[in-house]
């Protein structure tokens, strides 16, 4: 029995030894096999690396409700897209208790083309926390693990800091006007150069009176939402006052109903100012049609028939500028135009006797009024131009230094300085 038992033991041990030997022999094979298996698995489906540095932040300078998701894509070459999910809001959870996340967007390759990725999440509630999680989509459609962000809430900004440069510029421009108005009030002498076109206003109205013909005033074809129309109407006020004093007939056909109303107010006020409210005739200020060329057709015919001695075109003009100016020319009227529509300036310059170019047009009403306050504001405009010229000179000088000394320390400094200047002005 004992022998038998020992033989059993021995046999067992030997068997074990044999197994061990086989096993030992198999290890390398197994290793290779496993390695191959793993390698195959890896080669077939490289699970894309998960997104890194996931941040969820409030979008700046907005009225709330918007968060921005930032992440880094570790391997852009192996990524085909990104899946963005957000946590459900309390209301949504109440409706559907099983879900925690909801997919908001599945972005394509562009979103992971670079290392840094971002996504704007809109419509986020501001009274509760929101989280997002992001997963990178591999080139074969495999999704990486989701990475979860810290909770965030969108905030409402009261002031858009990106508009700070604009605010500063608005303040500079406004202050330069205000300071000059104050100086004008304090009795400082104001010298404004002659503007030939404006000196001609009295002459033109005078001539119309002498000839016994009408004065035609066209306040452009835009409505009151265009500042040019408003500027044109303030000039109308001055022309109307002169016309009232000379007792010349002033006709104002308009292209918009509201402009007609405003023009009537303006002319009536001018007659009051001239001390002759009884000569104001509402019937001379009429609405024709909103259609640009319908209005022009009327004006052309009207000019040919009535032959006004003086024509004023003050406001926003488009293609009709030349039609009016040529018709006015063919009836031999004195024509004074003013517009801030750059594309139409050439035609007025070519075909009218006098043209107020761009800024001159806006300065005209102030100039014509002759009031000290208003003349002061023109001086303020000049300060604004000086500011512009200064900025251009400094910026150009810096840019030139940067170009001349490229790579040098001075050039680098100048380059960054001009870049921040351009950034300030929004270029």
């Amino acid at each position, binding site marked *: 029995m004992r022998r038998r038992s020992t033989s059993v033991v021995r046999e067992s041990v030997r068997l074990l030894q044999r197994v061990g030997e086989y096993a030992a022999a198999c290890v390398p094979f197994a290793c290779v096999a496993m390695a191959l298996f793993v390698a195959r698995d890896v080669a077939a489906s490289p699970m894309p690396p998960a997104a890194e540095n996931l941040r969820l932040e409030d979008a700046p300078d907005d009225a709330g409700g918007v968060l921005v998701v930032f992440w880094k894509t570790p391997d852009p070459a192996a990524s085909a897209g990104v899946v963005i999910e957000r946590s459900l809001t309390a209301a949504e959870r109440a409706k559907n208790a099983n879900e925690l996340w909801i997919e908001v967007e599945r972005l394509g390759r562009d979103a992971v083309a670079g290392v840094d990725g971002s996504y704007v999440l809109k419509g986020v509630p501001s009274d509760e926390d929101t989280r997002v999680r992001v997963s990178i989509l591999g080139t074969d459609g495999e999704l990486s693990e989701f990475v979860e962000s810290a909770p965030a809430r969108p905030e409402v900004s009261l002031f858009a800091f990106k508009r700070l*440069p*604009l605010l500063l*510029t*608005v303040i500079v*421009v406004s202050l330069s006007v205000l300071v000059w108005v104050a100086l004008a009030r304090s009795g400082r002498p104001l*010298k*404004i*150069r*002659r*503007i030939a076109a404006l000196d001609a206003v009295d002459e033109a109205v005078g001539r119309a009176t002498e000839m016994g013909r009408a004065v035609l005033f066209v306040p452009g074809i835009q409505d*009151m*939402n265009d*500042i040019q129309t*408003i500027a044109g109407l303030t000039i109308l006020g001055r022309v109307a006052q002169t016309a009232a004093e000379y007792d010349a007939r002033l006709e104002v056909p308009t292209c918009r109903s*509201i402009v007609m*109303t*405003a023009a009537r*107010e303006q002319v009536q006020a001018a007659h009051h100012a001239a001390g002759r409210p009884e000569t104001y005739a509402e019937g001379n200020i009429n609405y024709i*049609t*909103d*259609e640009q*060329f*319908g209005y022009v*057709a*009327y004006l*052309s*015919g009207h000019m*040919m*028939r009535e032959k006004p001695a003086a024509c004023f075109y003050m406001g926003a003009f488009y293609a009709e500028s030349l039609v009016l100016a040529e018709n006015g020319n063919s009836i031999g009227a004195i024509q004074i135009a003013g517009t801030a529509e*750059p*594309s139409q*300036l*050439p*035609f007025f*310059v*070519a075909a009218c006797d006098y043209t107020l170019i761009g*800024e001159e047009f806006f*300065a005209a009403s102030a100039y014509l009024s002759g009031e000290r306050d208003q003349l002061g504001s*023109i*001086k303020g405009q*000049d300060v*604004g*131009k000086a500011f*512009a*010229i200064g*900025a*251009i*000179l400094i*910026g*150009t000088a810096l*840019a*030139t230094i940067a*170009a*001349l000394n*490229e790579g040098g320390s001075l050039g680098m400094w100048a380059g960054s300085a001009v870049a921040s*200047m*351009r950034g300030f*002005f*929004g*270029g």
Partner: protein
Amino acid sequence: MSADRAQQSSGAPKSDTRLWIALLIFGAVGIFAGKLWRPGPLAEAYVEVVTETRVLAEVVPAPTTQGTSTDVQSAETVAPTSLEQENAPTTRVWVELDDPRFKSGELRRVEGVATEVWDERAKVDPKKAREQIAALESDAEKLSAPTDPTGLTREEFEAREAARMNALKVVESTRIVASPRDSIGIWIAALLTLGIFSFLVRDNPFYKVVESILIGVSAAYWMLVAFWSTLVPDLFAKLAPDLVRATMLPGLAPSEHPGKDFLLALIPLALGMMLLWRLAPRGAWIAVWPLAVVIGTFAGMRLTASIEADFMAQIAATMKPLVAYTSSSAEGAAAGSAFDLGGTLAGILGVVGVITVLVYFFFSLEHKGVVGKTARVGVWFLMITFGAAFGFTVMGRITLLVGRFDFLFNDWLGLSP
């Protein structure tokens, strides 16, 4: 009328009139000679007529909501009347008579509502229309002959006959017809066009008629545009959404904040009423208030907008280096670059131009001495700018005239081959 005539005769000598009449007659004779040379109908117009039929159907409530098609989803839900408040709202849609959903049981016809039938006419290019009409005629001729039964089994013959009848039905239902109302339209348009052109010779009764039509039609046109595209959707639809939905905009989506919309719409309405107060016998001064609002708001808006978009942006755009290099290699301007005379000159001229023109606009300084000389250079820049703009615009203006002549020669006179 007599006053008009008096003005005319004083405006130009008699011999001139005769000359222009002769020229007009010459032109008309020329055109009709051209017409003889290229004969064909004048003012041809064709339309393709499609008859549309719609019936009112009710969506049969389905067990699952996901099976509904998009058409049904986009249709509005008819609000239940007060009597059937508790019942679920029924969705009713107008569909084509042969909508497949009738067969599948998704839709059910609503009884007692008349079928709506109407024609839709789409304009077709005359040349194409003539070709198509000819093609359709020859197709119809071919299809009108019955199939030759020799060598066919009964089934084959019947199948072919059925296919032929179907094809014939399609050919016969395709209707491309001459459209007299469009032809008349072309004649009228041509006469109106000539009426405007006649003004170039001199002001005349023909032009006066055309001008009067233009003023009347265009004034009404813009009022209609304002009515249908602003007042209805932006004012009426906010004030009385149900009424507007029932009468003018059946597709109007329900608002999320009807109360807020209503209150906000009252503001422009109130301003408008104040403006209209002008017509009232007393208190016309109140019309100035809405004007003050308009002038104030737009002055405020344009102030920031113009400083941002024109003032600041243009200053930023002018900050460019005065010297320019031609970079011969893509990677570095420093290594392989050469001084570029042309670019440098352009850069300097650009900055000089901006500054001198700005100096021209200075109102404080009399144009004398250095300022005067600088301003004069500014004027040169302005003149070049204006000259170029003038030159560029000529092309567009001539194209417009080409367009009108094109209409007269081709659409009206049919002179195109």
